[in-house]
């Protein structure tokens, strides 16, 4: 299923070097990471050097060159969240998951990321799991929230 989708994304943009970011975004969406052999196929099909695909894939935060966990945990590190206790929240999430930002646990359950400001500053500090916002978080609530994501 995934393989077909990826092949379709690539085929739809064959010969379109300007679609590189679009294609990588779509594949990241589909697979939730960008395997190197897929990057090589994309580069070849779109007609861009592999070095450019690698530069873009490693440059932007959206792209991941390693597989991600089932649940993506973002602790907002925007300014307001920082001012309102985001550091303590992040420390607690690191402790609860055993992860540092950018890491995925061995069981593939969580990937922890520093989240950029999503503009929900009024309800910071925030924890965002799989796109779902958990606002006005205290460190004490972390375990309860994470338990909702097996």
């Amino acid at each position, binding site marked *: 299923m995934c393989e077909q989708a990826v092949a379709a994304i690539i085929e739809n943009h064959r010969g379109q070097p300007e679609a590189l970011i679009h294609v990588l975004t779509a594949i990241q969406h589909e697979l939730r990471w960008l395997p190197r052999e897929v990057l090589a196929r994309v580069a070849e099909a779109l007609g861009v050097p592999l070095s450019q695909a690698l530069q873009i894939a490693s440059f*932007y935060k959206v792209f991941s060159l390693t597989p991600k966990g089932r649940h993506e945990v973002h602790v907002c590190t925007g300014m307001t969240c920082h001012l309102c206790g985001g550091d303590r929240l992040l420390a607690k999430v690191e402790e609860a998951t055993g992860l540092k930002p950018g890491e995925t646990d061995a069981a593939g359950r969580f990937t922890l990321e520093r989240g950029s400001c999503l503009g929900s*500053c009024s309800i910071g500090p925030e924890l965002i799991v799989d796109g779902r916002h958990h606002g006005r978080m205290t460190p004490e609530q972390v375990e309860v929230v994470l338990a909702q994501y097996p």
Partner: protein
Amino acid sequence: MPKFNTAAELEQYCAHLLAARDPARPCIAVCAGAACDGLDSAAVAQAFTDEIARQNLAGRLDLRVTGCHGFCEKGPNVIAGPQDICYFEVTPGDVPEIIRATLAGEVYEAKIYRDPETREKIAPMSEIPYYKHQVRLLIGDNPRLDPLKIDDYLAVGGYAALVKALTTMTPDDVLAEVKRADLRGRGGGGFPAGAKWETTKNAPEKTKYVIANGHEGESAAFMDRAMLTGNPHKVIEGLIIGAYAIGAHQGFIYTRHDAPRLVEHVKAALAQAEAYGFLGENILGSGFDFKVELHFDVGIFVSGESSALMRSIEGNAPEPRPKYIRTSVSGIWDKPSNLNNVETWANVPQIIARGAEWFAGIGSEKSKGTKLVSLSGHIVNSGIVEVPMGTTLRTLIFAIGGGVRDGKALKAVHFGGAMGGSLPVEYIDARLDFDEMSALGAPIGAGGLLVMNEDTDMVDIARYLMDFLVRESCGKCVPCREGMFQMLKILTGIAEGRGRKFDLERLAELAEVTSLGSLCALGKTSAAPVKSMLQYFRDEYTARIDAGSQTP
């Protein structure tokens, strides 16, 4: 969906549309803005839908799920029309009572505003202090329309400015109007929009582009998202009018990938605008062609820098261009490209509809119109506010924002996110004005205002901001990549009690070299927080260094 081939067809349709709508009919507007959404306003909206169905109220009570109302602190927000009764912190359990009260022309007192000091209860929007001091020209329509319905936008007078521009004005007339209105860019620089448009318009290259920058990478700024998500057609209308003035036939909206509702609304709005004939060929029979493509950021701040943003639209690595040629002359694919942010474009329809004199009558001497400001940090009432330019920080923070949370004292006001500056409390009567705030070292940027209480550690703030910027730098040029890296190391040292006497001098020198030497706007302005700290909070830094050096 109807497609309008002429302005007359559209006007006829609008007349029918308005005739079919009863302004006196009760209507519930449930806010689905970013904060309310995070507070599960979806459950509240669902409860209204269910209750309306259960009581069979269709036709007697309208329900609208809308963009941000503004008072984010007290979400989920619900506004009940026609009297605009505001309900705050609404839960699904409140829904039956709100419906009952609304239909009976009454107020459900349990969830209306209560003044924290006088304990007085206030129901109508226009009397609540948070709203009373605002002039909501841009965001005021948010509660009045469902962003997914173009007819809602038409019903509040939407696309009338486009009709006026296309049918009664030449492109030169439109440009002249925007110049006379003295509209300045809302994205950060405050550069006159008309002059920028003119540069692109007059550039010799025939193919030209217009871009709406809705990336809003500035941390703690959230008004552009509220505008674009809550009323996408207003931005699109502004963009079409601008393209007409400039002579562009292709536009781009560049926005965030990580805001699903924003993406959904903009996509729907573009499709509807095209279906109605506001985008495409021969718009409303005027002979003017224009289409818009949607592009997304891929999660890095530097793509908010205009030349880097344009490289990203081209599909290239988002490194800024090293050329000394403005993007308004040579931008996307080296074509003249006029970029304005979402709020700037949103101002265009009203300037055309109501005229430059009207617009220039609002605001301060050199900053005209209103400004959207997002209030957050240690403030009682966090949210999005819209005030005339020239409003004092005191009005923003105290009269509207309700002052500092938890009874603490105000220490500083920070503007402009990671590339902004912090002003000490002494400047509380400074005015929201591009030039005045820049002169003070806290340029308004996009308009994110952060309130810091007496306990705020200013060394930590600078360290935190530099840490953020270091991660966002593209790394191409030395002063940005290395200068920020060294500044971060010094600030971390001071914060951790390892500061040394000459650190402030090293910081000042790095700040100067980074701002003079860097390639793009990110690097050039990255040292702004450090500069404002050294200007206003030097004593705190010195004290920290001294204290650190005493510990063994």
